[in-house]
């Protein structure tokens, strides 16, 4: 039982921090978990891409991937440390799905050809991926897939609709389609990857309640994909993707965002006066801030436990779900408290002459609810904890 990092890990964390301190101006960071979801104009997008290039040069786009696929072959812990620090800075240049979906899926199930093509390109910053798991009728019930894939010699013809993909302007996406027309539920599904430029594929943004085009609606209308785009065995797609889904639930990026949000609230409470006194002098506020720090620290430990299990090769059963639920509840508590403390000023959007740096709190508040749904709703996670963790009867 040990709760410190090795000298090498501390050094790496500092290296990442130094890079970020040099390259990312504080003004870049908005409020939400992933700043790339809050990109508002071409200039911001150009900056995002410039950071991606720099990260690619350092080999930091695939830290724990094997070297032959463009990664650095570093530990899972190093990957986690990197993502934690990146997300503290709003994570420009990183498409989380590259790390948490593309990587794990191809590394576990991809052919050599697939790995060499796609992982290398992702590591060089040439492609951005998302996963498109959900459909209009397949949310928590993820196997209720109606997208079809009919084989036509060397191609599959895909028809269907995907919803709630994370809209970074993306190049490729992973999805499930039913390759066995007589199958139902989790049987007869296959995993595919598709280039978004494939004829028949159209993407429409879904605007979230913060006003950002953060999510995507994807329509596949007789889109023809080469059969090489299938990952893993035909009709075994659910087994293939379960591995990926278990990774997604980790959502490690939440830790950086959590720390950033707490720092923002504390800074606001230190710098803002009410009745001549800084807000932090108010015991009610002071204790709320302490409680948030306590919850964030406990959350941190539970996330790191998941990382350690992965590093040790210990099978994760319910531990990821457990960390995610606490992470989501802690973030909810944090953004709610942050808005409360800001009172009337919490309403101001960035750009108003009356808005301060604290306008980011509102962005955090409005973009946060999605994360208790994406990657596994709280209710599904609690089912998993009860069934798999506590072995309760179904």
């Amino acid at each position, binding site marked *: 039982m040990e709760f410190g990092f090795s000298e090498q890990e501390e050094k790496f964390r500092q290296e990442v921090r130094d890079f970020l301190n040099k390259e990312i101006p504080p003004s870049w960071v908005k409020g939400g978990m992933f700043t790339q979801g809050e990109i508002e104009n071409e200039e911001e997008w150009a900056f995002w891409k410039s950071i991606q290039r720099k990260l690619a040069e350092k080999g930091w786009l695939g830290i724990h991937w094997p070297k032959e696929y463009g990664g650095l072959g570093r530990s899972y812990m190093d990957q986690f440390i990197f993502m934690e620090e990146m997300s503290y800075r709003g994570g420009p240049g990183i498409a989380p799905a590259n790390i948490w979906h593309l990587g794990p899926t191809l590394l576990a199930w991809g052919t050599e050809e697939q790995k060499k093509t796609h992982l290398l390109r992702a590591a060089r910053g040439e492609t951005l991926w998302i996963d498109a798991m959900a459909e209009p009728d397949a949310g928590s019930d993820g196997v209720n897939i109606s997208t079809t894939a009919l084989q036509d010699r060397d191609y599959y013809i895909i028809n269907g609709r995907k919803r709630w993909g994370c809209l970074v302007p993306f190049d490729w996406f992973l999805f499930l389609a039913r390759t066995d027309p007589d199958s139902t539920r989790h049987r007869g599904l296959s995993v595919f990857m598709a280039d978004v430029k494939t004829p028949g594929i159209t993407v429409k943004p879904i605007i979230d309640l913060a006003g950002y085009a953060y999510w995507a609606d994807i329509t596949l209308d007789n889109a023809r994909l080469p059969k090489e785009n299938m990952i893993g065995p035909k009709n075994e797609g659910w087994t293939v993707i379960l591995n990926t889904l278990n990774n997604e639930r980790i959502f490690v990026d939440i830790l950086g965002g959590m720390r950033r949000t707490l720092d923002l609230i504390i800074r606001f409470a230190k710098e803002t006066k009410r009745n001549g006194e800084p807000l932090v002098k108010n015991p009610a506020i*002071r204790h709320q801030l*302490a409680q948030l*720090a306590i919850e964030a620290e*406990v959350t941190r430990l539970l996330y790191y436990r998941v990382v350690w299990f992965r590093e040790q090769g210990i099978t994760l059963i319910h531990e990821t779900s457990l960390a995610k639920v*606490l992470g989501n509840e802690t973030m909810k508590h944090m953004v709610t408290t942050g808005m409360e403390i800001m009172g009337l000023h919490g309403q101001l959007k960035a750009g108003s002459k009356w808005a301060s740096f604290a306008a980011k709190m509102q962005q955090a508040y409005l973009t946060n609810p999605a994360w208790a749904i994406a990657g596994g709703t709280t209710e599904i996670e609690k089912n998993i904890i*009860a069934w798999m963790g506590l072995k*309760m009867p179904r």
Partner: protein
Amino acid sequence: MNFGFTEEQEKLRTAARDFLEKECSSSLVREMEEDEKGYSPELWHKIAELGWLGLPFPQKYGGSSKTFLDLVILLEEMGRVLLPGPFVPTVVCCGLPILSAGTEEQKEEFLPKIVKGELIFTLALTEPNGRYDAQGIEASATADGDDFIINGTKLFTPYANVADYLLCAARTSTRKNKGQGITVFIVNAHLPGIAVTVLDTIASDKQCEVIFNNVRVPKGSILDKLDRGWKVMESAQEHAATAECALMIGGAQKVLEMTVNYSKERIQYGRPIGSFQVFQHRCADMLIEIDGAKFATYQAAWRLSEELPSTMQASVAKAWVNQVYQRVCADGAHLHGGIGFSWEHDIQLYLRRAKAAEVTFGDTDFHQDIVAQQLGI
């Protein structure tokens, strides 16, 4: 980062669990609530023979030189069965301060006897004002030749009714900074002028009022330095709060187990009540909180073992575990339905002790204050 225990630590836990399952039934716990002493000297003797009282002490005093984290493993198992007795007061609240701050003479006089189970110690710290900070110390110790005369009242002192010695924090000089001017004395509990009364408390756990009326102690009984005793108390409190957390996480896990097991047996509407989603989700909530409580506790214990700064982590742990044990006991009792609020069912034993543990060595408010200080606010 490492979230696993060593093989040796797992063995310690298994051995402790097996022993305590056999030796400390809930009937014993109930019996001790009514018992005058509040603990079983027979069981205390067995525990001494197992080497548990000496676990964190160096071999030269008869101990086994294990870490504070190792001790926390033992404490977790004790908390699981609600072991009645002055283990934490003796070993953690008094033994460890004597080890870290005592003279060689004091260590040789007291530690081997503690290890052998021959001496029971307790910490007379809190007073009627109910505070754990330096300002709460109003008891005084006035110099008189080579002695000091102690006057004051201590309240909520655990097992003072059976203690052989008390560590007593008293004010030896008035300073502007209330943290200075406090001295810790090692006091023979049978000295004239000491009057102990057992309080009737929610957990029936032998907390006592201890009145010091012109109690004369030699200056050789000072632990560490004159006027500088608060440092010793701060460290003792961090260790004690973490120890309390260990007891609590043991109890909380047991409550969840009881609840889940009950949910599988209890049939209503033709099915086990544990198959209903709300029931499952409430148990999932409990597991989430308990897992967090465990690692927050282990982190504090690890930092104390490594002698790293631990004030923040100990307070994070105590604040969180305070909240968790309370909720787990309340929810666990509720999920048992009617029997959950009966005297007969064991869950009430945990619920009452959760309340006691919550306020011992700092309630949530107290620790949130420390966390805020550590955050620089």
